[in-house]
């Protein structure tokens, strides 16, 4: 197949639209990592639960799509906070504080992932569910070269950017955001500053899981919703987070977009039958030349 510029442009545009979604999931993973030193392996399941919550709200309850999006974010945030409070916190406390409990935490994350998947099978069933959203009020973008970007992707891009901007504002320009950053850097000192550290930890978890839920609800109308959807998203988001520099929030976004573009180009110009490999190929390349990731920073949470 010969090279033509329009196709290249299309691959890049589509890569960006899916990449921002990887980005917002990666953002949550980075937030949890920088805030709690936990690599959260069950984050893909938060994304999956978010998608199902959105689906149930939109189809069974019948609320409009934007409300379903917000509702799913809130419900998933609560779920994430409950999981952290009930399960993870015991472990972290056993580890001597609110941080690392080493291998135990990793196993617990995996276990939580399996548990949540099975819970989802129980509640939602194994069938993939179509997520029909009425998005007629969103414009369909047409780029030069007759590249059509469907409504759902336009919406995804817009909402992702809004969420990122919102998070940035929250962390940079509010007092609570300042407290979150303080907790992220050092829980003991934050405590001594009078910050309610356990509450902030819940908040961090809730935020991160809410972001994952948003990604789930945004992806839903494009890819249908099913219980096993979290695994692959987790892998891509991890790749994005590491490519961008684990713990760096702008890095998570840039990493996500890079993974999105890279895998689309790989699928187009190398082979589409191994598309999921490209994310990890990029990961390896980045780690070879810049082990700390593109935005790797000494101090965490630079927002």
């Amino acid at each position, binding site marked *: 197949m010969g090279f033509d510029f329009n196709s290249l442009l299309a*691959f890049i545009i589509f890569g960006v639209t899916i990449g921002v979604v990887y980005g917002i999931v990666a953002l949550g993973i980075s937030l949890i990592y920088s805030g709690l030193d936990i690599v959260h392996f069950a984050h893909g399941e938060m994304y999956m639960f978010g998608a199902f919550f959105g689906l149930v709200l939109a189809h069974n309850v019948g609320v409009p799509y934007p409300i379903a999006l917000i509702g799913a974010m809130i419900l998933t945030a609560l779920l994430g906070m409950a999981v952290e409070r009930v399960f993870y916190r015991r472990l972290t406390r056993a580890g001597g504080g609110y941080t690392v409990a080493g291998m135990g935490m990793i196993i617990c994350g995996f276990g939580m992932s*399996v548990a949540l998947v099975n819970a989802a099978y129980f509640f939602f069933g*194994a069938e*993939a569910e*179509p997520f029909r959203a009425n998005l007629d009020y969103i414009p369909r973008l047409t780029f030069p070269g007759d590249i059509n970007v469907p409504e759902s992707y336009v919406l995804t891009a817009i909402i992702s950017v809004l969420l990122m901007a919102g998070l940035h504002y929250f962390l940079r320009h509010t007092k609570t955001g300042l407290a979150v950053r303080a907790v992220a850097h050092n829980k003991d000192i934050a405590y001594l500053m009078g910050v309610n550290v356990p509450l902030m930890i819940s908040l961090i978890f809730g935020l991160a899981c809410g972001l994952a839920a948003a990604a789930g609800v945004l992806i839903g109308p494009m890819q249908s919703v099913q219980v096993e959807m979290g695994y692959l998203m987790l892998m891509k988001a991890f790749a994005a987070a590491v490519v961008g520099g684990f713990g760096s929030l702008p890095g998570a976004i840039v990493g996500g977009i890079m993974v999105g573009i890279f895998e689309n180009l790989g699928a187009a110009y190398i082979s589409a039958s191994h*598309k999921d490999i490209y994310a990890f190929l990029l990961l390896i390349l980045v780690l070879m030349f810049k082990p700390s990731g593109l935005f790797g920073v000494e101090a965490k949470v630079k927002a």
Partner: protein
Amino acid sequence: MRVLNKVFAGVMAAGVGLAATAAFAGDIRVGITMRMVSENGQAYGQMVMDEIKAINDAGGINGNMIEATLMNDECKSDKGVANANKLIFQEKIHLLIGSTCSSVSLPIVDVTAKAGVPQMIPHSTNAKITQKGSEWVFRIPVSGRYYGGVNAKYVGENIGTKIAYICAADAASVGDCANMEKQMRARFGVEPAYRADVQEKEVDFRSHMQKIKSMNVDGILVAALAETMARALIQSYEAGIGEDVRRIGSSSASNAPVPKIAGDAAKGVFFTAAYAAADDRPIAKLFNEMTRQRYGIHAPDHDFSQAYDLVRIMEMALNSADLNLSDSSLAADRTAIRDAIASVEGYEGLASGPISFCAAPTPQCRDGNRTAVLIGYTKGGENFETEVLARVTMEPDFGLE
């Protein structure tokens, strides 16, 4: 996570194995491994069990009861092989039914061939299943090699020869794509206008659709498992490829999730199958009614019809086999059942044409069902509707090298 799942599954299987009890002499032991992850899958697994129970309730096979063990392989080959091994070596079954997915049935063929256990395939279409030369395998569904021929003939004569291919990496779809490509080449001398080999569970087809859109093709073959196919169909419309470009489905297009998930994008999709719910024969109407009442199925696809036909053929064969059913006669009984299935001829059931087997371990003998029906969706969604476009019976040698 997957890896962990497998570890857990292994531990579970080992536990079950230890707990397995000695089988009773005098029963005909049938082991079943199928994909039962979806509602559909659970329903047709249940149907097989119900039909076997009905045989027992009616007096069994010459006074002997059928003891059936149903296992779920989730369409995963490692689980399917583990199930088959457990059923054969611990449950000491006389006959294995399985599996749904080609990628699971294929490795099980080697297990049954080695152990000398007759295997009836309820659903898998991959042509290679019967090309391995096993004496023990019998396929109830229509082989992919026939489907390819039917599809190619219909497409070339009614739609055009400029076809884009989207081929997912699961065994059935790989086979469906290869067959279609081969038949289009043989019949019309054309190569695919575009071909994308995508992952089994690919979620994003937009780049491919964008390219296909710029090529002005006559049709797009989407060969993939149900959910993947549904996504590809939706995204083909999202990319702006019009209705005039026909969408051709692979064998999985018959699965209910395709119209359910794809919705409006399913309309106009056509595919070949072994059974059409829109079939107007009385037996078909009765069957549709039965599955709706008992299992709440809107319109049974060939998963159901084939499973049903399989139980009927099994019943015929077991009735005609000379069985001792003692511990020492296990191998002889298995052979007798194999020979009895091989002598089934001209069975007429739900399948669109008669099903016949013969003794040679060749595809000609063991692909017993050679009649495919072309079905088109006229409406998508939960309450989808279909129509029969054509019915075609192929020669036994068709599609072989």
